[in-house]
């Protein structure tokens, strides 16, 4: 218990240490209530294997936070903690607190379906349902029991517009989503997530299966989306993390090595391993 | 509300799965209870040692041996047909045949197993027996030979298909090692591949035997309905299954000793197939561990 407060202090200290660097930042939240997601002393196990070790981290609303690190470092596991997608893995066990919107999400009281509506997710490989484009976006509403056709139509249209897919598909919404290109499919998956009005969007290497042009489109999208949503993105691509994120956290072998402003992490990392990784010396 | 619905659905799904357990319990209980009533009137010793089975006659004898001998005779003949052919097909398809040929021939062979067994019975009685009678004069119109041969044709796909799977699971490096030393495909097949896949092949043979023992309509039609303790394949015999059919076709009152004889025959049949199936599962599990 002592340890917890120590680490918390450490993080607080780091926040204050960050202050001189962020000269152009005007608003600087300090209270826990102003953070969207807080994890405290988080340990994650798969059976005997410990995938995450004592993670303490806070994520700001209306920003893009990038999780980086070499394969198997625990960044994807960490991402999936926020919408409890790890629950289906055998032997998965978690200790510590994960707080989203001031609610501990690993308690009995949490309704997991509601959590996942609030915390949406976009996956590594585009995974549209083998249904029409329209039905893909409408799916989230339908499972909530929404029957109002007018509302669904509007929601589908606005969601597709948000991801700039509307003009490309508006004439064939009845077409099977699997007929779209990879980049279009991924934007469709983002639209599908937006349609249920989440607060947080988790993205697990969303562009790793896409060509550079499609990647560019999705990165552009992130700039627009962060005005309305809190975005956490896992990426393998250093340039991408540098381009799109406001904050960056570096994971290595289940430890959170370093986190902070992206500009700071990429220009003067305080940890040697972070520096080695972002300069491409390993990973 | 939503939670309750989810729980109710899960309970329904679980119940459906449990029906399979209830089926097994039902089978075991039905056979055991009726057989128990049977053995209150007939001693187990008589059942196992008497050489005559005449429950439907006035002078009743209850020795299961004639039915067992009929069952094993037809099954042995069937395996004698199916094993060499099935195993050859398996080796040929896995070691010799081009991929395209295999892809077309395998589903065609499965057709042999899709033909209803009454149809095979018809073949045995109206085609195979008359043909064999021209070669073997004095052969009876009902006999275990033609029933066994036709049953063998029917179970070829069981042996060929499962054995082929086992052979193809043998790593190619083993074959290449053998070819590298100048072996022919035949030598490689019999000295390397077949021994390496032996457990899978044994499983296929056991399952084929189990299938032959439980087969009903072919033997009921073509092997005759005369319980006889013999190993002569040319005369009429009766199998456990054919006896059950014979009694079921007649008008035997419930709760009579005759009625219970079919359960006594049934439990004997069940025990044999149960043991065979479990041996094959046991070998399969051991074999899986070996390859992982």
């Amino acid at each position, binding site marked *: 218990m002592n340890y917890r407060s120590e680490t918390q202090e450490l993080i607080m200290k780091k926040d204050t240490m960050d202050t001189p660097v962020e000269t152009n930042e005007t608003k600087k939240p300090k209270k826990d209530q102003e953070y969207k997601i807080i994890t405290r002393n988080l340990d994650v196990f798969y059976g005997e294997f410990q995938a995450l070790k004592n993670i303490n981290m806070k994520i700001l609303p209306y920003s893009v936070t990038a999780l980086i690190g070499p394969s198997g470092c625990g960044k994807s596991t960490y991402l999936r903690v926020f919408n409890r997608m790890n629950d289906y893995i055998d032997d998965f066990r978690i200790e510590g607190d994960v707080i989203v919107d001031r609610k501990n999400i690993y308690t009995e009281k949490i309704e997991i379906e509601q959590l996942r509506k609030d915390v949406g997710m976009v996956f590594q490989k585009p995974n549209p349902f083998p249904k029409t484009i329209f039905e893909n976006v409408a799916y989230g509403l339908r499972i909530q029991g929404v029957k109002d056709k007018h509302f669904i139509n509007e929601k589908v249209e606005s969601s597709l517009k948000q991801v700039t897919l509307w003009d490309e598909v508006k004439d064939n919404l009845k077409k099977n989503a699997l007929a779209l290109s990879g980049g279009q499919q991924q934007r469709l998956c983002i639209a599908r997530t937006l349609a249920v009005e989440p607060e947080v969007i988790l993205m697990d290497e969303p562009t790793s299966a896409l060509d550079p042009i499609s990647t560019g489109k999705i990165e552009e999208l992130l700039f627009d989306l962060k005005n309305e949503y809190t975005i956490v993105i896992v990426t393998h691509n250093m340039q991408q993390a540098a381009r799109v994120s406001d904050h960056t956290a570096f994971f290595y072998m289940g430890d959170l090595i370093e986190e902070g402003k992206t500009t700071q992490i990429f220009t003067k990392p305080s940890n040697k391993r972070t520096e080695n990784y972002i300069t491409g010396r390993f990973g | 509300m939503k939670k309750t619905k989810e729980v109710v659905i899960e309970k329904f*799904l679980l119940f459906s799965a449990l029906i399979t357990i209830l089926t097994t319990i039902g089978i075991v209980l*039905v056979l055991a209870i009726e057989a128990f009533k049977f053995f209150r009137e007939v001693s187990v010793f008589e059942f196992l040692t008497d050489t005559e089975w005449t429950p439907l006659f006035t002078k009743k004898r209850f020795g299961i041996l004639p039915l067992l001998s009929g069952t094993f005779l037809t099954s042995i003949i069937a395996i004698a047909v199916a094993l060499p052919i099935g195993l050859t097909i398996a080796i040929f398809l896995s070691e010799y045949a081009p991929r395209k040929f295999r892809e077309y021939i395998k589903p065609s062979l499965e057709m042999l197993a899709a033909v209803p067994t009454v149809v095979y*019975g018809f073949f045995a009685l109206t085609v195979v027996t008359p043909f064999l009678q021209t070669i073997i004069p004095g052969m009876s119109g009902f006999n275990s030979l033609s029933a066994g041969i036709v049953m063998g044709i029917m179970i070829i796909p069981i042996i060929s298909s499962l054995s082929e799977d086992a052979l193809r699971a043998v790593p190619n490096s083993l074959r290449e090692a053998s070819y590298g030393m100048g072996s022919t495909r035949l030598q490689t097949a019999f000295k390397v591949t077949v021994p390496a896949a032996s457990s899978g092949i044994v499983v296929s043979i056991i399952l084929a035997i189990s299938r032959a023992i439980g087969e009903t309509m072919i033997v009921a039609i073509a092997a005759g309905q005369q319980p006889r303790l013999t190993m002569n394949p040319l005369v009429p015999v009766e199998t456990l299954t054919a006896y059950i059919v014979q009694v*079921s076709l007649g008008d035997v009152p419930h709760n009579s000793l005759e009625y219970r004889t079919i359960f006594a025959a*049934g439990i004997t049949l069940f025990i044999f197939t149960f043991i065979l199936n479990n041996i094959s599962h046991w070998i399969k599990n051991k074999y899986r561990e070996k390859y992982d």
Partner: protein
Amino acid sequence: MTSRKNRNNRLKDKIFSVWGIISTLIGLILLVIFIGDIIIEGIHRIDWDFLTGLPSRKPEIAGIFTAMMGTIWVLLLTAMISFPIGVAAGVYLEEYGKKGRLSKLLEINISNLAGVPSIIYGLLGLEIFARIMNLGSSILAGSMTLALLILPIIIVATRESIKAVPSSLKDASFALGATKWQTIYLQVLPASFGGILTGVILALSRAVGEAAPLIVVGALAYVPFAPKTPMDEFSVLPIQIFNWISRPQHGFITNAAAAIIILLVITFAMNGVAIYLRNKWQKKIKW
């Protein structure tokens, strides 16, 4: 010496390869001969009167109408009973009861049931359905018996098809806040439906050809009228064939051959539909 031995080995190799082709084709050739023989024997007997005729002591006027109706009744009822139970059990095993002693037990039990001879199911149906549940030798009792018989096939087919559904599809559904059952019902089952249907049709085609368990349950060889309700007594094509085969007059052998042609057409048609569905489904869905 060595070269002669080598030549010898090569010759053996050649001989085996010829023997391999013969073995592979022998079963199929015999099947073709059998079927050819049956067609020659029975095809001329098939006409409208044969299809719509009632059973008779005279082979020339006997028809398969009652047996045909019995087969259709049994087929429909068996499908209605086994389909929901089999799919539900398959879904449970694949999606809910993945771990634990119970599912291990269920799994062993199902593979054991698959190896139980069909006639044993007949004894089960006779005692439980016909006698204890007092259904008598009715279509319902026979169909319930056959449903239990093909349940393992349907369960295994369901599990295989569900296993082939990519987990990314489930992830996407869960991530949108769908419950487990919503995900199964809206994503998993539609995506695996082709495979499940293929398995169900193959299982039913096996049920159509079964005679032994129905004989034991008490289905009759001679039924004067076509059944009208599930509680009626009945006959089916395989039993009618069996009955005709065991008659001495040659006319009945011809009838049996003709009825076999009908039965084979039904069986092969069902297998054909199943294979067609499987291929179509495999082509349609690629992830």
